[in-house]
């Protein structure tokens, strides 16, 4: 892994569906989160928490916090993709940053930051990642450490001035 250039993970590809488009004629603000959640599911699969992994470990991932910056309108039928960067992790948490872009371009449509928590579903209660999962989390965290901190990470919401 150390030989390969560090790149963002492409975690979702698709088009803006009619049922996501609201009275303003564009992707409804709530459905950006639906798309970003699909990308989060892909991250879970990458660290070994797909269906089989969840069954084997008894663990799953909960999203504690999520922040979205809506940067451009997106119309029905547009081809879009989500790219994910790992911002950090500890024994049971994973912080991710995702951008929604026009497919195959760097045209930024929205940015999303999420704090994810590993949960033992028998509680449910917060629990350290299973060792096999932790190993994958650490590989990704280390690989992405050299990437620049994204523009829209760590934002708060406030009126200017």
């Amino acid at each position, binding site marked *: 892994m150390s030989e390969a250039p560090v790149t963002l993970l492409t975690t979702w590809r698709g088009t803006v569906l*009619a*049922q*996501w*488009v*609201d*009275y*303003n*004629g564009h992707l*409804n*603000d*709530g*459905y950006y*989160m*639906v798309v*970003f*959640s699909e990308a989060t599911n892909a991250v879970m699969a990458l660290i070994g928490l797909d269906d089989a992994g969840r069954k084997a470990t008894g663990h799953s991932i*909960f*999203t*504690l*916090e*999520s*922040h*979205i*910056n*809506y940067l451009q*309108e997106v119309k029905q039928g547009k081809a879009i993709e989500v790219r994910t960067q790992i911002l*950090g*992790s*500890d024994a049971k*948490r994973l*912080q991710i940053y995702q951008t929604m872009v026009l497919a195959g371009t760097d045209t930024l449509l929205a940015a999303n*930051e*999420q*704090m994810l928590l590993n949960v033992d*579903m028998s509680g*449910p209660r917060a629990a350290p990642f299973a060792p096999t999962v932790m190993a994958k989390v650490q590989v990704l965290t280390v690989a992405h450490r050299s990437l620049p901190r994204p523009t829209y*990470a*760590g*934002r*708060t*919401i*406030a*009126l200017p001035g």
Partner: protein
Amino acid sequence: MDPSQKPAHSLTTPLEGTGHHAWDPQAPIKAPLRLLSTTVAPQWVDYNGHMSESCYLLVFGDNSDAFFRFIGIDEAYRAAGRSFYTVQTQIHNLHEVSEGEPIRLTLQLLDCDDKRLHIFHAMFRGNSADLLATGEQMLVHVDMLAGRSVPMPSDMSAKVQAIRAAHAGMPRPAQAGQPIGIRRKPG
């Protein structure tokens, strides 16, 4: 089917087509506003029977729609070319909630200027004080044809200012204004 009969969009909100609220300047304004109560719908739940994390924001969107109608924004207003767009959202998911459970929403106006609204949604379990999730949003009033932000009309601005005054004495919610980050113990 005649294509002209097709709706211009497919996603409809529970309050769509219900018009806007008749504003009574003498009526006391609740702090926070209580505009929406509902139950967790089957299409919002995941394989565990709990509301999916992404669906909390859909419910907050319905609460925003109720708020828009409270200040005078309905289909006719949007047809004239103006609306509110969301520029930022932050969600805190605090507790799970199951299909069929009653939920109620509150809305606090944290701040505003002539074209922006900084709002805070809170979702509670039924009539309890059990806080399930919060949503903080910045909304901007836009001219959709021109594709730029514009001030609210004066009658709407007066309503927003009245709500802001009614909410000015409320405590700031603990979840508001917090960046996302891993808080590590010192040492």
